[in-house]
């Protein structure tokens, strides 16, 4: 009960005060953290000297010795590998499909998706400004226009959100069909390569292994022993085998077990990566599930929710939220692990890098080519990492 009046002493006791003001500029921070003791001064100076020499060497190399011409000359190879040049419109069609979806989603959801769309549009715009062939710059400009148009169209139409989610789901087979084509004009998947291949494998792996992993984790927690054992056996078996082995097995065993089905190499590798990643995903999710107190299950049951509803509305939202960092870590690992498909002869981004170096025209340019590949990997990996942090903030992880 709040009192109607206070005596003078009481009022002084309960008077709120501002915390003491600190003058903490960057200079103060440096002094407090880097130069506060004599050994910190010593370490800071040593570190500065090291940083100076390393960056000096790096920058000198990058701006005077490195022959960066190798990158633009092979840009299409990096992008799509051996995908035939006259069929390149298929790749652009896929990009346009994605631009429409991203634009519409950005308009409907706003926030993080909106910023993503703006960045994406910016990338296309920069592409249009670069000195490519005129047709390529036209394609880039088209992508900007389509993203912007879709964004405008989707603005505020929140009622259509379920349709867009359906659109994203449908886009996947559609993209595959567009990339592959029919009849004489079709492009063999063995010709898919470069960043295109890397992204296809990573997206298939992430999109399929996530729900599969959640499903496996729920099975591993099941009360029914048979389901629990099968799931546990699967997870432990996959985790006990290196990815390379699974890729080999996927390449050789799938055609043996399913002789009637013509499953192409890219799909086989996608499946192998998915099954591998799902086992790790399941363990990440299980960690989250175990962190949910029993009382949450009981409260859900007490208001009459069934098992599926309890998981869907109460347990999984909390469990997944708490393991976002681990899940995104798994996504990033998967993205980088796609480079292992080289061992069965598929030429992904790293494979392209290797083949460029092997070309006598570009002999001795390993550093340039590998650095470029590394930057591409970093951009995508860091985007995922950044996205996960943003999602955590948006969901208020750790706050409620």
């Amino acid at each position, binding site marked *: 009960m709040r009192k109607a009046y206070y005596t003078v002493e009481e009022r002084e006791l309960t008077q709120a005060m501002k915390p003491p003001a600190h003058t903490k500029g960057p200079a103060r921070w440096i002094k407090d953290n880097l130069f506060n003791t004599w050994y910190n001064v010593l370490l800071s100076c040593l570190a500065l000297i090291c940083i100076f020499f390393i960056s000096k060497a790096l920058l000198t190399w990058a701006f005077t010795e490195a022959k960066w011409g190798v990158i633009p000359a092979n840009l299409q190879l990096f992008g799509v590998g051996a995908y035939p040049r006259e069929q390149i419109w298929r790749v652009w069609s896929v990009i346009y499909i994605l631009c429409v979806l991203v634009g519409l989603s950005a308009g409907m959801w706003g926030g993080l998706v909106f910023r993503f769309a703006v960045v994406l549009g910016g990338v296309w715009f920069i592409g249009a400004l670069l000195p490519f062939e005129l047709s390529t710059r036209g394609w880039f400009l088209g992508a900007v226009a389509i993203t912007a148009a879709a964004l405008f169209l989707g603005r505020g139409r929140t009622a259509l959100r379920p349709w867009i989610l359906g659109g994203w789901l449908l886009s996947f087979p559609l993209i595959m069909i567009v990339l592959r084509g029919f009849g004489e004009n079709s492009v063999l998947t063995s010709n898919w390569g470069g960043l295109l291949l890397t992204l296809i494998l990573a997206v298939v792996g992430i999109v399929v292994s996530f729900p599969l992993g959640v499903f496996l984790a729920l099975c591993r927690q099941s009360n029914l022993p048979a389901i629990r054992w099968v799931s546990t056996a699967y997870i432990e078996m996959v985790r006990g085998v290196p990815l390379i082995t699974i890729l080999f097995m996927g390449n050789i065993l799938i055609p043996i077990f399913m002789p009637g089905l013509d499953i192409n190499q890219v799909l086989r590798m996608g499946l192998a990566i998915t099954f591998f990643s799902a086992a790790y995903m399941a363990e990440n999710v299980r960690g989250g599930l175990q962190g949910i*107190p029993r*009382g*949450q299950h*009981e*409260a*859900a*049951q*007490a*208001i*009459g*929710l*069934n098992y599926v*509803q309890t998981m869907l*509305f*109460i347990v999984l*939202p*909390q469990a997944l*939220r708490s393991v976002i960092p681990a899940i995104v870590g798994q996504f990033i690992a998967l993205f980088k692990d796609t480079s292992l498909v080289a061992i069965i002869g598929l030429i992904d981004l790293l494979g392209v890098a290797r083949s460029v170096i092997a070309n006598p025209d570009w002999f001795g340019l390993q550093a340039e080519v590998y650095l470029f590949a590394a930057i591409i990997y970093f951009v995508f990996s860091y985007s995922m990492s950044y996205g996960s942090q943003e999602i955590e903030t948006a969901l*208020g992880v750790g*706050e*409620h």
Partner: protein
Amino acid sequence: MAEHENAPNDSIIVCEDVHKWFDDFHVLKGITTSFEKGERAVICGPSGSGKSTFIRTLNRLEEHQRGTIVIDGVELSDDLRNINLIRQEVGMVFQQFNLFPHLTNLQNITLGPIRVRKMTKSEAEEIALSLLERVDIADQAYKYPSEISGGQQQRVAIARALAMEPKIMLFDEPTSALDPEMITEVLDVMRELARSGMTMLVVTHEMGFAREVADRILFFDEGAIVEDAAPADFFDNPQHERTKLFISQTLQH
């Protein structure tokens, strides 16, 4: 206890020889009792006496291994349909509140009506807001459970249970996890609920509340009902030695 004064057809809960084991430990040793509509029963007893386990068997959070429990004419068995039916009739309030931390207070309350009772969102929110009004925290509707006090959380939990329009409310030590200054506000809500005619089974150590609100007090010890009496008889004329000791110990402080 078998010849309880109520006619059996008035009874909304009928328990016949209910047994329960945790592994080898015999928690409930043949509970036979019944509760009539609108009855307000307080269940007390020392910790480990099986009182919480007993009310948790009534909505199948614990499974009984022998005997029968019939809630509003439906027998609790392995049949999932019956369990879900009964859980809709029986609201429960927990010691640790068990609110869903990722949902706002309002969403905590509307979840059941929307997903189980298949109400529309606006219907459910209307009910939820009026319930929050009733437990006197309408202004906290759009906050998250972590942003309100324990007493307020427990009142949201009561509103959440009431939103399912249950015929019976079970309270499992609803004030045991609260700071002393917040106990009153929760007990006030429960008193109001008792006046409205709700059938209530309350496991609690609040003997003042028991004396004031209960029609009947059941004293559990070592998995059995030792004493079953009206509050006046229970406090002033306990029959069993164990009850006498318990009352003298609880009333000392």
